[in-house]
């Protein structure tokens, strides 16, 4: 209890907690869970966009998409490293992911059906991610906060890129505009769901807030996202698939319709369109790659052994 109070005092003083600092077990556990989920989301997030790398419409778009998906892998790497500072290995986390036990952002369980989905993901999904992540740049845990600073910078580049894809489509032929509208229709609601269940139904929030792991509630972040995104959609000349959406002059914000929480919980529980396919794809990559990782290890050992023999002989 004394320790907890002292720890809370450090947090309250906006001190950063570093890997070797003492910390409550629950703080560590919460962070491991959250950073792990975040890392998994980056890794699984490579799949829906990766699905269009071989079919991108121009070389410029192909290169940009390849770079973007690669960035996501990079984010996964920083985040796994941040989690490792808390005493959990990348291998452990990966095994949790491929066994289907670990969670990741549910949005990646939806399919990318058209090229416009690549635009919509960049614009909306990365946009929502930024809303979630910007406050994390001030998270109390140092390694996570620092990883987030780097991630956010790249995400906002991706978001602009996604918006620009949408813009080109919206300015394009009727077929392109229709593709853009259709993608927006399909990704809008899942994007709103990215902020998690409504505040009443969300676990962990209070303690996380006290520990400055979380700084805004789900509904606060969702509202910020809606307020930022509606004018962007208007600039594209696209309509949002929500008849209840309206400017609320009194509150200075957009009101929006009821989210389909049944769909949200179904996807969380593994029943989204591609949950099984996503985990299966990661599992296949992991299992098919086992011999490569073993060989790399075996080779490193052989090389080390040869070097020590060489050193001994000198």
């Amino acid at each position, binding site marked *: 209890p004394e320790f907890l109070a002292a720890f809370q005092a450090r947090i309250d003083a906006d001190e950063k907690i570093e890997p070797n600092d003492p910390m409550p077990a629950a703080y560590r556990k919460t962070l491991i869970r959250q950073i792990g989920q975040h890392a998994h989301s980056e890794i699984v997030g*490579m799949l829906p966009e*990766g699905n269009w790398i071989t079919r991108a*419409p121009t*070389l410029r778009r192909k290169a940009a998409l390849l770079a973007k998906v690669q960035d996501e892998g990079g984010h996964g*790497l920083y985040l796994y490293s941040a989690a490792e500072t808390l005493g959990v290995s990348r291998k452990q986390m990966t095994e949790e992911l491929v066994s289907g036990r670990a969670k990741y952002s549910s949005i990646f369980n939806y399919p990318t059906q058209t090229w416009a989905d690549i635009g919509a993901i960049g614009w909306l999904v990365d946009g929502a991610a930024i809303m979630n992540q910007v406050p994390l740049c001030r998270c109390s845990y140092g390694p996570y906060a620092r990883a987030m600073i780097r991630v956010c910078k790249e995400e906002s580049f991706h978001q602009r890129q996604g918006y620009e894809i949408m813009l*080109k489509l919206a300015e394009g032929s009727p077929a392109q505009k229709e593709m853009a509208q259709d993608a927006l229709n399909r990704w809008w609601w899942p994007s709103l769901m990215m902020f998690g269940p409504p505040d009443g139904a969300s676990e962990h929030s209070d303690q996380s807030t006290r520990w400055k792991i979380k700084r805004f509630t789900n509904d606060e972040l969702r509202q910020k996202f809606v307020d930022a995104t509606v004018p962007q959609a208007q600039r594209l000349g696209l309509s949002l698939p929500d008849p209840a959406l309206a400017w609320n002059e009194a509150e200075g914000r957009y009101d929006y319709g009821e989210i389909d929480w049944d769909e949200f919980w179904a996807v969380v529980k593994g029943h989204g369109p591609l949950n099984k396919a996503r985990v299966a794809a990661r599992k296949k990559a992991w299992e098919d790659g086992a*011999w490569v990782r073993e*060989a790399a290890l075996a*080779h490193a050992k052989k090389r080390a052994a040869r070097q020590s023999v060489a050193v001994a002989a000198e």
Partner: protein
Amino acid sequence: MPAAWVAALIGLADDHLILGHRLSEWCGHAPMLEEDLAMPNIALDLIGQARGLYTYAGDLEGAGRDEDALAFGRLERAYRNLLICELPNGDFAHTMLRQFYFASFMQLFWQETESSTDVTLEAIAAKAVKEAQYHRRHCAEWVIRLGDGTDESARRMAEAVTLLAPYTGEFFIADPEAGGAVEAGVLPDTKALQPAWQADIEQVFAAAKLVLPENVYAQKGGRSGLHTEAMGHLLAQLQFMQRSFPDMTW
């Protein structure tokens, strides 16, 4: 540089596009996260090189074809890439060995091209040579690691050697469309690069404890648009958007 050599540039660009495309298929499916970063990175370099070459070829041709018209707008028989670039990825050993073969060749190719009498190619080469060096080193390390790793990795690497060796001879067959460009000092004489390439392979294979293949019958045809059956399926993906939505801006 005379427009007569446009086809040679397109062939070179095709090598990079098609191999970059193949490599990009690994994205999100690599054996480890580090390779999920490294392989797209190499693919990006290759696609970047392809873009520079297509653009230059289109300019020289003067028929209004830009990089995308060239990359996406031709029929299979008009693609001129070396066959090794289009082969399916196979396993990681296969992919790394192919990339090593190609990068080792391209490193030498770009080194020579750095002193091309054509200033545009000289500039492309100056950037590409550094990239090819990095690709070669990265892939050579994997060839060694896997060749001298576990029994399984050594077996897979040896299989990759058997499957791929027949496709390396095509590196050194003079491109009929490059006739004169070699004499003019614009493009390197690939035949002359063979000894240095062979020496590089031998050195890496020795470190990897891999047996050099002997009496290999060289497959060829890519430069004449004679492709394997894998090519058509690759193009069905590559060209999907441009074919489904012709003449649009993206």
